[in-house]
C-alpha cells in the first residue's frame, strides 16, 4: 500500500483533468461538471492521503526518482503535517471555487466586462486553468526537492496569470501583468539562491537538490545569509509582506472572487509554506539572524494592511488588503520562533484559507446581486437576503478573529507567541485585531444594513442560469453548498482545533529543534483537546 504513488496520483488527476477539459470540445456546462467531478475526486484522494498519514511519522509517502542527474535533481514528493494541511485546504477549496464561479464565465462580473471577456469556451478555459493551478499547488506542497519545488512554484504563475487576466473586470490584464511581474521577479531572486544551493552542495561532494541531502550540508554563515535572503524575498513577495504587497489589492480587485480565493487562500500560502519549509529548515542560523527585521515587516504588514483596508470602497479590494494583515500575522508567528508561534502560524494558514475564502465568495454573491463592487452603492442587503447576509457576517467575524471561530485560536496563539518574544511586539499585533474589528464591522454595516439601495439598472438580472441574478432572491442551493461547508469548518475548528494541532505540532516541534529553539508545545484552552483526535476529521 505504502509504495503506491499516492501523491503523484493526487497531482496527476487534476492535471490530466485540466488537459482533458482544455482539449475535449465540451460545451461549457459539461466542462464545468467534468471539472467539478475531477476536483471532487482529487478531494477524495487527498482524504485518502490524510487517512494513512501518521501524525508523528515526519515526512511520509515519499517518492524519489532521478530527474536531471546532471543537476542532481530528483522528482521527489512527500508530505508532513504542514504539507498535509495545506494539501487538504487546497483540495477542499477548489471544488467550492468551481461551484462558486459556476456562472461567472457566462455572465461577466460587473458592468464593464463584456468588451474583454471571451465567450467561446471561456467556461472551459476557467475550469482547465483552475484544475491546472490545483495540480501545481498540490505539487508545490508535496515537493521535497528544491529544484522541483522551484519549477512548480514558478509554473503555478502561468495558470494564475491566465485566470486573473482572462476572467474578471476591466483592467484585469494590466493587473495580471503586474501580478506576474512581481511574482516572477521574486521567483528569479529565488532562482539565484537555488543556484547558490547547487554550488554549495557541489562544493561538498556530488550536487543534489533533495531536501534531505541539503539539510546535511553545513552552509557557511555568510553564504547561508545570502541564500536565506533570496528565499525569503521570493516568499515575501508571494505571501505578501509589506513592502512588496502592492500587487495584491489590484489583483483581487480586478479578478473574479473565485480567482481571488485561489490566489489568496491557496497560492499565497506557498509563501508562508516556503518560509517554514525552506527558510527555517535550510538556514536556521540565518533565520534567527533575520528575525528582527522580518518581525518588523510582519508588524508593519499587520497594521498597515488593516489601516488601508478600513478606507476601501471596493469590497474585493478591501478583502484583499485584509489578507495582507493576516499574512503579517502568519509571518509573525513563523519568525518569533517558538512553538506557539509555529503552531499558530500553521493553524492560521488553514483558518485564513477558510475564512477569507468564505468572505470572498460571499462578497462575490453580494456583488452578483447588486451589480457593483462598490460598498457605497450597496446597503440593506440583509433585508433582502438575510441568509447570505448571515453567512457573510460569520465569515467577517472569522476574519476579525472572534472567539469561538477557528481564526481566534490561531490568532491567539500567534499573539501569545509575540508576547513571549517581545511584549511590545505582542502589543502592536493586538492593535491589528482592533483594526480588523473596525474594518470588518464597518464594512458589514455599510453593505448589509441600512436602507435598501436598488440594484443598478440592467445588471445581474436574468443572466444567471439558475435565476439567482435577481437582486431579490436569497442564497441559492449552489451558493449555499459553497458557503456552508466553509462556515461549518470555521465554527468546528473554532471549538475543536485538536486535529489541526495534532497534525502541525510534531512538525513544528522538529522544525524548531532544527532551528535550535525548544519549549513546550502549546496547550489549547478547549476541553476536547484531551481526547486524541485522528486527522481524518480534519478533512
Amino acid at each position, binding site marked *: 500500500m505504502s509504495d503506491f504513488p499516492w501523491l503523484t496520483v493526487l497531482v496527476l488527476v487534476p492535471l490530466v483533468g485540466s488537459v482533458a477539459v482544455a482539449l475535449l470540445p465540451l460545451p461549457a456546462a459539461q466542462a464545468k461538471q467534468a471539472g467539478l467531478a475531477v476536483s471532487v475526486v482529487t478531494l477524495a484522494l487527498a482524504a485518502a492521503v490524510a487517512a494513512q498519514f501518521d501524525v508523528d511519522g515526519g515526512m511520509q509517502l515519499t517518492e524519489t526518482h532521478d530527474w536531471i542527474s546532471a543537476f542532481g535533481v530528483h522528482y521527489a514528493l512527500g508530505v508532513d503535517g504542514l504539507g498535509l494541511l495545506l494539501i487538504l485546504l487546497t483540495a477542499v477549496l477548489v471544488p467550492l471555487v468551481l461551484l462558486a464561479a459556476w456562472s461567472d464565465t457566462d455572465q461577466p462580473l460587473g458592468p464593464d466586462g463584456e468588451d474583454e471577456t471571451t465567450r467561446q469556451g471561456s467556461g472551459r478555459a476557467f475550469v482547465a486553468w483552475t484544475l491546472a493551478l490545483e495540480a501545481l499547488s498540490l505539487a508545490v506542497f508535496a515537493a521535497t526537492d528544491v529544484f522541483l519545488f522551484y519549477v512548480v512554484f514558478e509554473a503555478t*504563475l502561468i495558470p494564475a496569470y491566465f485566470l486573473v487576466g482572462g476572467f474578471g473586470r476591466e483592467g484585469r490584464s494590466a493587473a495580471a501583468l503586474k501580478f506576474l511581474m512581481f511574482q516572477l521577479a521574486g521567483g*528569479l531572486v529565488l532562482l539565484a539562491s537555488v543556484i*547558490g544551493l547547487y554550488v554549495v552542495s557541489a562544493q561538498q561532494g556530488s550536487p543534489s537538490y533533495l531536501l534531505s541531502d541539503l539539510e546535511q550540508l553545513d552552509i557557511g554563515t555568510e553564504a547561508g545569509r545570502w541564500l536565506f535572503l533570496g528565499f525569503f524575498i521570493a516568499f515575501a513577495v508571494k505571501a505578501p509582506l509589506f513592502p512588496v504587497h502592492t500587487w495584491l489589492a489590484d489583483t483581487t480587485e480586478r479578478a473574479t472572487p473565485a480567482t481571488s480565493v485561489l490566489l489568496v487562500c491557496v497560492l499565497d500560502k506557498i509563501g508562508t509554506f516556503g518560509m517554514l519549509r525552506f527558510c527555517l529548515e535550510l538556514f536556521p542560523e540565518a533565520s534567527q539572524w533575520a528575525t528582527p527585521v522580518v518581525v518588523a515587516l510582519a508588524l508593519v504588514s499587520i497594521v498597515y494592511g488593516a489601516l488601508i483596508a478600513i478606507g476601501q470602497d471596493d469590497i474585493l479590494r478591501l478583502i484583499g488588503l485584509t489578507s495582507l494583515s493576516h499574512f503579517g500575522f502568519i509571518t509573525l508567528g513563523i519568525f518569533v520562533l517558538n512553538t506557539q508561534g509555529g503552531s499558530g502560524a500553521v493553524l492560521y494558514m488553514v483558518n485564513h484559507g477558510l475564512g477569507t475564502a468564505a468572505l470572498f465568495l460571499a462578497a462575490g454573491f453580494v456583488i452578483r446581486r447588486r451589480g457593483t463592487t462598490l460598498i457605497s452603492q450597496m446597503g440593506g442587503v440583509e433585508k433582502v437576503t438575510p441568509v447570505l447576509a448571515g453567512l457573510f457576517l460569520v465569515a467577517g467575524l472569522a476574519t476579525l478573529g472572534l472567539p469561538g471561530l477557528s481564526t481566534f485560536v490561531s490568532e491567539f496563539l500567534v499573539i501569545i507567541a509575540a508576547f513571549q518574544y517581545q511584549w511590545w511586539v505582542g502589543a502592536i499585533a493586538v492593535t491589528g485585531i482592533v483594526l480588523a474589528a473596525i474594518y470588518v464591522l464597518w464594512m458589514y454595516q455599510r453593505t448589509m444594513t441600512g436602507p435598501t439601495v436598488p440594484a443598478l439598472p440592467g445588471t445581474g438580472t436574468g443572466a444567471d442560469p439558475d435565476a439567482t441574478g435577481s437582486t431579490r432572491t436569497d442564497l441559492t442551493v449552489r451558493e449555499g453548498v459553497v458557503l456552508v461547508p466553509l462556515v461549518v469548518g470555521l465554527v468546528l475548528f473554532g471549538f475543536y482545533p485538536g486535529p489541526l494541532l495534532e497534525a502541525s505540532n510534531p512538525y513544528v516541534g522538529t522544525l524548531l529543534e532544527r532551528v535550535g529553539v525548544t519549549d513546550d508545545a502549546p496547550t489549547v484552552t478547549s476541553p476536547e483537546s484531551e481526547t486524541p483526535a485522528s486527522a481524518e476529521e480534519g478533512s
Partner: protein
Amino acid sequence: MDSTTFVKPTLDYVHLWPILVVLGVAALGVVVEAFVPRARRFVTQTVLALAGLAAALVGTVLVGLDLTEVGDGAARGLLTAGGTLVIDGPAVFLWGLVLIFAVGGVLLFAERRLEGGVSAFAGQAAALPGTEAERQAQGLDHTEVYPLMMFAVAGMMIFPTAGDLLTMFVALEVLSLPLYLLCGLARRRRLLSQEAAMKYFLLGAFSSGFFLYGVALVYGFAGSMDLAAIDQAVRADTGNHTLLAIGMGLLAVGLLFKVGAVPFQSWTPDVYQGAPTAVTAFMAAGTKIAAFGAILRLFYVGFGSDRWTWQPMLWVVAILTMVVGAVLAISQSDVKRMLAYSSIAHTGFLLTGVLGVQTSAELADGQVTSLQAILFYLTTYGFSMVAAFAIVTLVRDSGGEATAFDRWAGLGRRSPWVAGAFAFLLLSMAGIPLTGGFVGKWAVFTVAFSAGAWPVVLVAIFSSVVAIYFYVRHIRLMFFTAPTADSAAVVAPSLLTSATIAVGVLATVLLGIVPGPVLDLAGHAGEFIR
C-alpha cells in the same frame, strides 16, 4: 621561398564525411541550377538539400559514435587535415545542431503555400521593385537559395571545427557570404530586405577585417596559426604580450559581432527584420551556434591558459549584452525586432555561460561543465527561435507578413493554437519553468555562479526580469486584447512549416520536462581537444 619539403597531409575522409557531403550537395546544387530546366529546379533542389542534410546527419551520428578518447580521456576525437580540423565531441554535437536547424531552414525555404504558390524569395533579385522585369519574374523564385544555404551550413560546420585561425577565418567567410546574399532576396518588402543585406554585409566585412587582423597579430605572437601551438606559446609566454592582448581583443570583436553581442549588436535587429523570415530563422539559430562553438574553442583551447586576460573583457560584454538586449527590446513595436533583441539578450546569457569555464580540477564530479551548459542552451535556443520565426511567417495580411504588434492583437482569439504555441515559445525564451529555456538558463547561470561570476549572474537575473516583461506583454497582446479591424490573420501553411513549428515546440517542451538525455549527451561530448 624557402624550400620546405612537402609532406602530404592526411585527410580523414570518413570523419569529414558530414562536411564533405554538405559541400558536395552545395556544389551539386549549383550544377542543378545550371542544367535542370527551371520548372523542375524547385523540387530537385529541395529534395537534394534534404537528402544531403539527412546523409550528413547520419554521418554526424556515426562519427559521434566512434570518436576515440585522446590524452587523459577528458576529450574524445581526432585531428585531421594536418591539424586544421579538430573533430571532437563538442564539434560533432554542434554539427548535429546546425544540421537539424538547417533541415528546419530548408523546410521553411520550401514553403510555398503562404505566398500562394511561390516561395518567400524574390523571382529576380536584381529586378527593380515595381518594374516590368519584376512583374515578369512574378511567378518565379530563386532556387539558388538552397545551394547558398548549403554553403552557409558547411561554413557553420567548419567554424567550430577549425583547429587553426586561418581555417576559422575561411569558415567564417564561407558561412557569412551566403547569408549576406540570402538576406537580400525577400520577395516582399524588397527595399527593406536589400537594405538589411547591405548593412549586414558592410558591418560583417568590417568585423571580419578585425578578426583577420587579430589573426595576424596572434600569429605574430605565436609564430603559428595552430590553436594548440598558440596555447603552447601562451603558456610559455614567449614573445610580445601586447601583440597577444590586442590580437585577442580583435579576434573577440570579430566573433562577438557574429553572435551579436553589445557593442557589436547594431546589425542584428535590422537584419533580422529585413531578411526573409525563413532566412532569419535559419540564421538566428545557425550563426549563433557556429559562432559560439568557435568562441568556445578559441578561448578555451587557444587562450585557455590566459583566462585572466580575456575574462574581464567578457564580463563587461556579457553584462552589457544582457542589459541592452533586454532593455531595448521593451521599446520595440515589431515582432521580428523584438525577437532580434531577445536573441541579443540570449547571447548575453550564453556569454555568461562562457564565463563559467573551470578547469576539471576545480569541478566536482558530476558537476555540470560550462561547455555542457552552453551546448544545451544553444539547443533550446535554436529550437525555440526557429519555431518562433516560423510562426511569424504565418501571421499575414494581403501585404505579406504582418509583424507590427498592433496587427497581432487578439490573435489568441482567432487562432488559439498558433498563438498558444507562440506564447509557449516566448515563455521558453523568458525561462519559465517546464520549458527548455528554463533549464538552459539554469545551466548557464549555474556554471557561471560556480565559477565565481556571481555578479554577472545577478545582472543576468535582473535582465531576465526585464525580458519577461516584454515577453508577457506580447502574450497579453495576443490573448487579452480585443482584435481590431486590421488584425492580421493566420494563413494555413503547408506541411513543411507546420512540421517545423511542431518539432520546435515539441522539442522545447521535452527539453523542459526531460532535459536529462540531451544534457547527458552534451556532457558526454566531453571537452575540446587541446
